[in-house]
């Protein structure tokens, strides 16, 4: 039976279901136990699964590194990093071990680990609580990088992530945690690596994920043209085909992300469109992104983040070219 849930509740609901389904799932991280995480995404789980939900020391390398060992013994670690920027303190474990253990042991040792973390701006948080380092994760072979954009998507994608035999970075947009409710089916699984066409259109393709998808949907309400909106859902593996097919139809594309522009995923998506649909393009691929600056404190945060106006301007540039 479907329930109307917020995104943060969908996270909790999924963790609960997976803990119940599979005894090898273990949920851990700083503050995930008694208080249920700083966003309450794990609230109450410790009461039902006291042996598999743990508060850990505040040590990101420890949280990620122990996952390699837990996985080696047959557990399925689901770790929470409190905010994406704190992952930097454990990035070496991710890059040097989690992402590589399968290939360097030729598949004899694997790491079916899910690392959940809130990311992104728009909630007036402290410094280093608003980043989205998705391109860095997508650049590491061995990882999968997943972005839910709604409560139902969260359930479907997180279920797949936890059951996946390889490590998954699960980026939860903080801004959407409590912003709206939607029906979330009990049993729901969305395969990783498949994009979703959220709105169909013929004039221009807009690719956006996570919280930027919501902004994009708001923005295109006021656009005269017929806009096709695509949520890739996973940045690695990236469903290039769905994007390319759409661009072949529309001839124009805008990529929206809140991470900095340089070396961001917008560049990668543009390159793939060039490789596979160059002759269909009627305009250069536009990028609407954060700037190449550290995410500012909240007094300037709204000026940094792409908003509806910037997205609409990007769409206009793509439509008006030539």
């Amino acid at each position, binding site marked *: 039976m479907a329930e109307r849930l917020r995104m943060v509740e969908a996270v909790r609901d999924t963790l609960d279901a997976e803990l119940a389904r599979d005894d090898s799932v273990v949920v851990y991280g700083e503050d995930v136990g008694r208080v249920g995480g700083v966003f309450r995404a794990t609230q109450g789980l410790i009461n039902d699964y006291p042996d*598999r939900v743990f508060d850990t020391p505040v040590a990101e*390398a*420890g949280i990620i590194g122990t996952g390699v060992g837990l996985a080696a013994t*047959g557990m399925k670690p689901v770790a929470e990093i409190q905010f994406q920027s704190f992952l930097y303190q454990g990035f070496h474990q991710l890059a040097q071990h989690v992402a590589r253990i399968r290939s360097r*042991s030729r598949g*004899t040792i694997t790491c079916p680990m899910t690392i959940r973390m809130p990311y992104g701006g728009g909630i007036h948080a402290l410094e280093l609580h608003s980043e989205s380092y998705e391109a860095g994760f997508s650049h590491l072979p061995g990882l999968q990088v997943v972005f839910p954009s709604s409560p139902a998507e969260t359930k479907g994608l997180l279920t797949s992530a936890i059951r996946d035999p390889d490590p998954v970075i699960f980026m939860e947009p903080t801004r959407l945690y409590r912003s709206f409710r939607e029906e979330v089916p009990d049993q729901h699984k969305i395969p990783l690596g498949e994009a979703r066409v959220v709105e169909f259109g013929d004039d221009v393709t807009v690719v956006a994920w996570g919280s930027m998808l919501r902004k994009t949907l708001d923005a295109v309400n006021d656009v005269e043209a017929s806009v096709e909106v695509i949520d890739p859902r996973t940045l690695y593996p990236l469903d290039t085909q769905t994007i390319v097919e759409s661009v072949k139809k529309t001839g124009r594309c805008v990529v929206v992300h809140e991470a900095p522009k340089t070396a961001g995923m917008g560049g990668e998506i543009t390159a793939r469109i060039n490789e596979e649909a160059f002759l269909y393009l009627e305009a250069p691929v536009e990028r609407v992104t954060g700037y190449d600056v550290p995410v500012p404190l909240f007094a300037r945060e709204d000026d940094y983040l792409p908003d509806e106006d910037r997205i609409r301007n990007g769409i206009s540039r793509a439509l008006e070219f030539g």
Partner: protein
Amino acid sequence: MPQEDVAQFTVRSVQVLAEDETVDDELVPELTDDQLLDLYEQMKRSRRLDERGIALQRRGELGTYAPAIGQEAAQVGSAYALADDDWLVPSFREQAALLTHGTDPEQILQYAMGMEEGAEIPGGKGALPPAIPVGSQPLHAVGIGWGEALQDRDTIAITYFGDGATSEGDVYEAFNFAGVSDSQTVFICQNNRYAISTGVEKQTKAKTLAQKAIAAGIEGVQVDGNDVLGVYRVAREAVEKARNGNPVLIEALTYRRSMHTTSDDPTAYRGHEEEAEWELRDPILRFQVFLENREILDEETEGTIDERIESELADAIDQANKERQAIDPADMFRFVYDDMPSELEQQSDAFEEGVEGDTDG
């Protein structure tokens, strides 16, 4: 409120077989003559593998190689305390420990020849592949010891690292995590005096590295790392404690008698006099005298052991060389994901076509 001392600590240090060949009979571990000979043979096997490894590297047949010469007692003595299904989580210099725990010399050579086959664990259990970053792997051992405990098994993980690694944050995180999770883990710090060229006195102001356990609330103990009986004794105790969820850090005082790796030149940072001094404390030499004094080892047995090692190593080198000739480079695509993403499949197909194209001329 008056001032008072709220905590006091001591660090125990153990030695069974001293440099001058005196033996503390009360501390000699209960091992049969065959087991004692086994310890000796494992140390020699590792020594010869390292000597051959250096020679092969010089001839261009191996990549960079990190010999464990001088550290055999610390590694063999500790790994000998493990049960077959216990986990061994090495750094990149643990040939002696791995051989003792059942890894084939051929696999060690394969890794040094640049093949992932050498990092593959037969059966998927028993040891993790070498860890090249400094000090990252103790956390994996803690995860293993934690996972085993969660599944109500008494299997433990033992992990090896050097004195330099204790300066890394991950190593402290590992001690601390192990303590709070009652992880079934034994930490072996081989204090071999040097982190490449940096002496241990520049690594820390602490008097011992064993005391680094104290801040994490776990037991720390020091042992003469060139005394294989002492190391075995301490490791045996630690392994039993770990099986009950009490992690232990062992600091084995030893000396890396050769280079950090084949790319290193130790003459740049230490003198001949120091090296000569440690040559006299060599773990194999010391144990050999012990075995001879007890009439467990004679020239004939030594000859048999040496011959066996030489023939095994010759076979292993042959075999590894043959496998190197037969590697399939497209393997690099096959083990990144369980289910190969389509974009990777495209890259793999393009690679295979390129290889075929080249062959076709």
